[in-house]
């Protein structure tokens, strides 16, 4: 088969099994768009901004486990994609981003719409390529997919000069089924002796703690994790990225840990004597101050990326390997063995129960005001806990993570590492395209949603009916919260004045807008939004302006030094008065 460079790209994507290509045309990719026009296998989704393309591909990848694919033009197309590429990089999401480049002969001449895409993306990609030879185009694309999806996944950029895609230059094409890269051989099988040592330590634990992260979801190791955790009977906490790997409604799950995690999860982290981290990277939002992190624990760390091990927290038993392979091996070695000191484990659970009694997520209700937490609880009820939830970044993100327990992996889609506002809506589009029959909601705020609101137009064009749950407090809530706590309420530039009328805005984009202000109307409004199955609905929920996310570990504090909500402080005081200590 003789094909031009453009045709090779499209044919390759087809052969690779790519369903959707999120993109935006421009001068440097005109030839590719022409080839795209002549086929019907790879569905192109025309976004309204390249950032939207990368987030949509990212959402698709997070929900399906398959790589997300983007096509953008040179110069501003490439730079606009950078935020989305960096977002995927921080969360280890497999993405292949094809950027057009000016013709080879013009590279380096400051040509129109020229930017050094390889250079500018280098710090935020797993790897990148500039294709200089048409004969290497197919193999380079194959390498890109291979690198993006194996080992610790991540985004790969393939920069293709326009002349490589010229329609009149044709070469023989064959789909490269296999590729090997001598310098890239990720190890998935953990070291047997280390695994054995880890199992021994785990079984001898008296106050064990399992700490699972996004790596478990990436590795499709939820099933193994569940088996492992249930057999041991140990408490498990999960990171923001790991939610859903183990069921959020299971009694062994004691909540998310870290800055806005539950009291019980953080207290248990602080007091545990054996900690096993599985596919989690000891992010600073998890550890707080490194010197005060898990002071009594021996630490086992399973990670596919050797560089993640002992990067911030020293591991006593490091295991480099895939979560699935290592957990499978551990389950095998454990066999029917049970923890040696079952009495100690019982006492440990008792302690944890006493922390749980504190109800650290309890929040105060105010007459006539919708609490953001209540809005998420309502969302959970109406969707029966079965929706795909994407989120933007800020208070609403934390409320969603706290109040929408996920029982399945890949249901909770958020920008954890980079914290990218504007992620939620385009990500929801990617998810909805992958699962058209599922409820997909984007939990957002009036700040975040405006960062990629243009994608409402894409939702209409391709009939992608997502629900936008806008927790509208007229503040950049998380920043305001920090200003309240740490800057004596000097609310510097966090008030969103002159907000658009979101109902009218949604209608202008051809969608349904609903505003709700009264707590009594919340349930019906939420029901109505989800009852409109084939419409994109913008549910603008006017919430309590000064609601805060609790509990919270302030910077410089340890896990056992959480700040509790004013309500919870009262609960704790009354528990103390009754002689019940926590």
């Amino acid at each position, binding site marked *: 088969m003789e094909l031009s460079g453009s045709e090779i790209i499209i044919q390759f994507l087809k052969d690779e099994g790519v369903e959707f290509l999120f993109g935006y045309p421009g001068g440097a990719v005109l030839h590719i768009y022409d080839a795209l026009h002549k086929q019907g296998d790879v569905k192109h989704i025309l976004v309204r901004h390249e950032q939207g393309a990368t987030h949509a591909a990212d959402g698709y990848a997070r929900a399906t486990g398959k790589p997300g694919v983007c096509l953008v033009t040179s110069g501003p197309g490439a730079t606009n994609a950078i935020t989305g590429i960096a977002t995927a990089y921080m969360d280890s999401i497999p993405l292949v981003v094809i950027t057009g480049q000016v013709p080879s002969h013009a590279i380096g001449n400051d040509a129109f719409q020229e930017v050094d895409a390889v*250079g500018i993306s*280098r710090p935020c990609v797993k*790897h990148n390529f500039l294709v200089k030879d048409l004969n290497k185009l197919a193999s380079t694309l194959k390498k890109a997919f291979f690198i993006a999806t194996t080992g610790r996944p991540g985004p790969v950029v393939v920069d293709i000069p326009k002349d490589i895609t010229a329609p009149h230059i044709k070469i023989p094409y064959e789909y490269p089924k296999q590729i090997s890269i001598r*310098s*890239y051989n990720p190890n998935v099988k953990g070291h047997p002796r280390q695994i054995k040592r880890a199992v021994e330590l785990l079984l001898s634990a008296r106050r064990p703690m399992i700490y699972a992260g996004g790596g478990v979801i990436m590795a499709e190791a939820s099933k193994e994790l569940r088996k492992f955790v249930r057999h041991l009977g140990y408490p498990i906490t999960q990171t923001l990225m790991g939610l859903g790997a183990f069921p959020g409604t299971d009694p062994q799950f004691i909540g998310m840990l870290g800055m806005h995690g539950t009291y019980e999860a953080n207290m248990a982290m602080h007091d545990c004597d054996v900690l096993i981290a599985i596919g989690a990277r000891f992010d600073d939002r998890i550890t707080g101050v490194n010197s005060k992190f898990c002071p009594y624990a021996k630490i086992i760390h399973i990670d596919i990326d*050797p*560089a993640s091990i002992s990067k911030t927290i020293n591991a006593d038993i490091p295991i480099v390997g895939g979560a699935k392979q290592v957990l499978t091996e551990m389950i095998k070695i454990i066999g029917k063995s049970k923890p040696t000191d079952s009495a100690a484990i019982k006492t440990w659970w008792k302690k944890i129960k006493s922390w749980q009694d504190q109800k650290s997520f309890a929040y105060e209700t105010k007459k006539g005001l919708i609490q953001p937490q209540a809005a998420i609880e309502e969302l959970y009820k109406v969707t029966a806990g079965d929706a795909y939830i994407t989120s933007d970044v800020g208070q609403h993100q934390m409320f969603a993570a706290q109040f929408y327990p996920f029982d399945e992996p890949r249901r909770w889609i958020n920008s954890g590492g980079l914290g990218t506002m504007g992620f939620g809506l385009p990500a929801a589009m990617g998810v909805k395209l992958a699962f058209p029959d599922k409820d997909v909601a984007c939990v957002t705020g009036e700040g975040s949603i405006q960062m990629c609101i243009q994608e409402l137009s894409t939702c209409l064009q391709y009939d992608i009916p997502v629900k936008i749950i806008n927790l509208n407090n007229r503040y950049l809530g998380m920043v305001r919260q920090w200003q309240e706590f740490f800057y004596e309420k000097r609310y510097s530039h966090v008030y969103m004045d002159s907000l658009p009328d979101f109902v009218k805005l949604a209608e202008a984009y051809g969608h349904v807008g609903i505003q709700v202000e009264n707590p009594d109307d919340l349930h019906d409004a939420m029901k109505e939004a989800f009852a409109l199955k084939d419409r994109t609905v913008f549910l603008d929920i006017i919430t309590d302006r000064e609601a805060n996310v609790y509990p919270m570990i302030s910077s410089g504090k340890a896990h056992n030094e959480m700040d509790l909500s004013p309500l919870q402080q009262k609960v704790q005081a009354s528990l103390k008065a009754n002689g019940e200590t926590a």
Partner: protein
Amino acid sequence: MRHIVSLLVENEAGALSRISGLFSARGYNIESLTVATTEDQTLSRMTIITNGSDRIIEQITKQLNKLVDVVKLQDFTEGNFIEREMMFVKVKALGESQRSEVKRLSDIFRARIIDVTDTTFCIELTGSGNKLDAYIKAMHESNVIEVVRSGAMGILRGDKALTI
């Protein structure tokens, strides 16, 4: 502590900037870096001199290994290895006494004079970084016109080798 790390990397455009970019992005120190192709044209050999605590050095080697273009890597510091650096020095050489003094000094250091004018000598010297420092010191700063140093390179002693 000072470490000498030797790498085999794919001889491809951009490989060097991936490595130097890693050091700047993560705030690691780079004292010197040398690079050239090997007998295998598809591979470049790189020697990096860096310093940091054991923890930092461990991260540096892990992060370098993570780069797709890095084929193989070894921290020589713990092992038995040879380290050399090359230097060109242009010095003032005016009058008989100064010219013979420079020549005498160069003989002591086993340096070679490789270019001569009426007023200058250009000297080539190979050795450890310390030796090169000592030579410059002995030469007196006021006489030195220009110094060009290659940065260090290293190779393992004995039959061990960093090859693929």
